[in-house]
């Protein structure tokens, strides 16, 4: 489902990933581990088509990203849900509108949008808060709102960057359970964390990164 072949990603002045090859199969749940700065976020962004590799190839859904134009890449992104470390919520609109954004981008209209948005909010337990503005939500609620937005398009791939980062352990456990439940209904899940213990409940495979390369 996602294939990395000898992928290198350079930013001006530093190399974030070096010669990484790995594969994530359909329906798998994979955890990416490593210290901060090991290249976890870069790996996830490349796997979601949010960025392009400097060298090597990334293939998602059988499509080589290097061969895709900007428009095709944007359209591909609609089939992948991404939970951002910094949430990237829009603070000028309520919870409902934040979750509806990917649907509006994809051209969905009124009733279908509302149905899907409420289904997503229900899954993360925020159905009662659809009118709330993001500032009125707690950190954990903002995290769940971001997850609701990531799943509203019913993606076959769900990627989460440090979803348990700033949460206390009970809350983190509930979030991890949520991802496990998505995986159980067939969604391919890729999740990153610098804290191995928070991933104890997660079964599945691990991809360990050290200084931008796969750990031996």
């Amino acid at each position, binding site marked *: 489902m996602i294939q990395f072949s000898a992928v290198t990603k350079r930013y001006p002045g530093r190399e974030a990933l070096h010669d990484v090859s790995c594969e994530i199969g359909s329906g798998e749940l994979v955890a990416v581990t490593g210290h901060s700065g090991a290249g976890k976020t870069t790996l996830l962004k490349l796997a979601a088509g949010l960025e392009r590799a400097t060298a090597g190839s990334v293939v998602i859904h059988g499509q080589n990203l290097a061969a895709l134009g*900007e428009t095709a890449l944007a359209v591909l992104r609609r089939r992948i849900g991404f939970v951002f470390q910094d949430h*990237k919520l829009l603070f000028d609109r309520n919870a409902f509108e934040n979750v509806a954004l*990917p649907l509006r981008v994809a051209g969905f209209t009124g009733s279908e949008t509302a149905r899907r948005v409420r289904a997503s909010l229900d899954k993360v337990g925020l159905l009662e808060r659809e009118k709330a503005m993001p500032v009125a939500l707690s950190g954990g609620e903002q995290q769940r709102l971001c997850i609701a937005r990531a799943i509203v398009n019913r993606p076959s791939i769900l990627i989460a960057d440090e979803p348990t980062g700033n949460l206390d352990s009970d809350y983190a456990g509930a979030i991890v359970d949520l991802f496990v439940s998505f995986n159980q209904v067939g969604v391919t899940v890729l999740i990153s964390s610098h804290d191995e213990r928070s991933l104890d409940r997660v079964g599945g495979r691990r991809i360990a990164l050290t200084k931008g390369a796969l750990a031996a």
Partner: protein
Amino acid sequence: MRTWLTLHGQAAAAALGRIAAQPFATLSAVLVIAIALALPMLAAVVLKGVSSAAAGLDTDPHVNVYLALDATEDEAKKLEPRLRSHADAASVRFVSREAALQELKSTTHLAELLASLERNPLPHAFTVRVRTTEPARIEALRGEWQKLPKVDQVVADFEWSERLGRWVRFGDRALAAVGLFLALAVVFIVGHLIRLQVLTRREEIEVSQLVGATAADVRRPFLYHGIFQGLLAGLAAVALAAAVSAWLQYELRALTSTYTTEFKVFFIDWAGLIAIGLGAALLGWIGAWVSVGRELRQFAKGR
């Protein structure tokens, strides 16, 4: 197809929403653009008035040969072949004193005055089309014909009308240049206003792109915004120009009724209105396109 319509409908609705959400900013923007559009429109209206007046004037090079008042028609007829045989004369038309009086009565507002005269004050005359506009040759003609018997006056008075025609053509060109500059100014004004919109929506744009918005998706509402702004400004400009021209017309009518040629200030028809509206919308679209494209490239660089 339905998705396409949905996307455009949403973008247009979003643009209208943004316009409605900032009525004061929209109004001032629309007025600035409208003034930039109304100026060349007014100039065009005035110029059209002048050029239609000038078109009614005889601008072909010709010389009028007026005979003495006591010259008879027979004496005049004897002159005709001598004028006709001149190398520079293209054609000669005899205007009898009676015909001249009739013409004057019918083309001017002097009928009453003329009727009150006891006798016809006009002489027999010839209108000679000449083959040259060179002042020296015209002068030579005048001198030569002046010496013919019973000739009172030889007048070459087409020069001023020719000069007027030149001025009108000059005005046309100047107007085209000024119009072009002001159209460019409209593009920049719209571009600047849309740029501010893009900057205030930077986060929304960024997140939209992260969840799969293409460049076209991001651009679309801004393009509609530019189009609507241009359209509103075009209509406002027409209203502005119409008001000013109506105000001018009142004075001009009083002034021009004494002249033989009506100096008309007229205004645009429906086709012109639609053309100006569409033209302004197009300028708005271009301005929005240029500025959104530029800002998106800046965003991409900063990422």
